[in-house]
């Protein structure tokens, strides 16, 4: 990514942020300014997360039912992410991490808002109670466990659960769903995916550095992964069935999710 960074008071030159020294790189990518530049590129002109004027695809009542359930469960995941990210602001170890998480808080709030809005588009009058009614048990358990990690102020485990496990699951599912979704749902998923990529990047970077500096953290995180894996894989199975994805795609998503945690050395 090319960003224009001020070099001196009266001149600016384009600089590739990856050419910056590591501290300056972190300072840059964890800033409001960076978020502002990033989202301006893909959110400007969107209304409720999609381009205005898109025409919805006709669907049977059964297809509508399935889409409503899928979106309700996306809301459960995003609500967990909003609660998790906001709780993490308090325990973040430094200002840059706090500012980054504040950008993530508003991203998660936006995701929740556009999914709610999409549910209303589909004729759901009271999305809050509909989400409660259709929520997957596995996702609710995941949400509860994530908040326990945040409340216990376990920074590494909470970031792992939130920015690696949950965001990887969402990234994999949303990317697959967007390929075959109706134009409006696909459009809003594309914007969400771009945010998720940034959140995963933060999680991997933060934990990668910590694991390198304190390898003993690994066994604790391995335990967290073990505990959450079955909830994630259950939720994945349930959601891919509702979206109507073939079996091999479901297996591919499972591998994609496991691959993202493997990047941090967890198999």
């Amino acid at each position, binding site marked *: 990514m090319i960003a224009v960074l001020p070099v001196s008071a009266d001149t600016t030159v384009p600089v590739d942020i990856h050419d910056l020294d590591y501290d300056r790189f972190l300072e840059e990518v964890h800033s409001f300014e960076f978020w502002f530049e990033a989202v301006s590129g893909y959110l400007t002109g969107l*209304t409720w997360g999609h381009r205005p004027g898109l025409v919805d695809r006709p669907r049977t009542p059964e297809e509508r039912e399935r889409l409503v359930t899928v979106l309700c469960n996306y809301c459960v995941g995003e609500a967990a992410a909003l609660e998790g990210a906001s709780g993490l602001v308090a325990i973040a170890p430094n200002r840059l991490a706090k500012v980054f998480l504040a950008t993530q808080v508003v991203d998660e709030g936006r995701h929740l808002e556009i999914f709610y809005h999409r549910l209303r588009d589909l004729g759901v009058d009271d999305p809050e109670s509909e989400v409660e009614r259709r929520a997957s048990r596995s996702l609710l358990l995941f949400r509860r466990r994530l908040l326990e990690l945040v409340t216990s102020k376990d920074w590494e485990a909470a970031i792992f659960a939130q920015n690696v496990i949950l965001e990887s699951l969402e990234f994999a599912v949303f990317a697959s769903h967007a390929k075959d979704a109706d134009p409006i749902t696909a459009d809003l998923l594309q914007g969400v995916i771009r945010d998720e990529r940034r959140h995963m990047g933060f999680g991997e970077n933060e934990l990668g550095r910590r694991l390198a500096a304190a390898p003993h953290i690994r066994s604790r995180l391995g335990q967290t992964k073990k505990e959450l894996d079955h909830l994630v894989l259950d939720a994945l199975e349930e959601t891919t069935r509702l979206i109507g994805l073939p079996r091999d795609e479901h297996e591919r998503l499972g591998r994609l999710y496991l691959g993202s945690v493997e990047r941090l050395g967890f198999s």
Partner: protein
Amino acid sequence: MSDFLSAYSIQNWLESCPQGYLEGTEFGHLPGETEPELLLENEILRQDAIATTVQMVVGERCALAASSGLINAAPDEGSRRYLATQTLDEARHVEIFTQRLHDLGIRKDQLEDTIGQYVNPNLVRFAEVLLEKVDRKDFVSGVVGQNLVLEGMAFSVFELMHALSAELNPKFGRTLAGTIADERRHVGFGENRIGSLLKQHPEKKPEIERMQKEMSYFMLATFADSFRHNQSQAEMDRIGQERGHAAYQGVDLGELSPEQMEGVLADTVLKEFKTRLGRIGVEYQTPVRP
């Protein structure tokens, strides 16, 4: 309530704030704008600017902790999503005021020590009173403390500083203008949301009134320390720098001593508290004057 909250949606926030009055800014001001040379070259003026900015960073750090901490205490989804926008607003304020410290010559490795050196202990106590409510997940008290007391104070302080800076320091003036626009939204949410919640929980009023009185005392003590120890005006007079004559609350700031300015600001903030608390049905408690 849902109609009122729709005005505080993230969609509206995106259109009015990042894609609205912040469009084209960099750390809250126009690219290329700098602090005035006079401020950077005169050590007394620079130290006073650093001391003032440290209080702003500390106040905004408290607001960031409070707004993010209140999300999980909010009773409805609309309030949670609104607080998500406020969390990012406050993080932006932390960032831009921290950047101002760097612009005033504070190196990154000096930041926390500088904050520790200059922070006013009364401001820390003010923050502690609020954050204790947030830690207990007391949404009603937390929002009154955050969105009416803290934000109400910040709003008036920033307006005064904006009046003082607009002419002499356009960079800082612009930074403050964007912050004031944010604070106005935060105060509006507080008034609108809490009024209805207090009708459901009238038993919360005595606790809220005690909190307001306590926070107001620490706020006045912070003002007293800041104005009475501020040397900028005397230094400006000493070097023959002409005073600006900006108007604030109907008075010419160029004609006032620091103590008189403190009096105008304190009276303004307390009057605003009284009006805003009255709107939500809370009886304003007069604090002890330090």
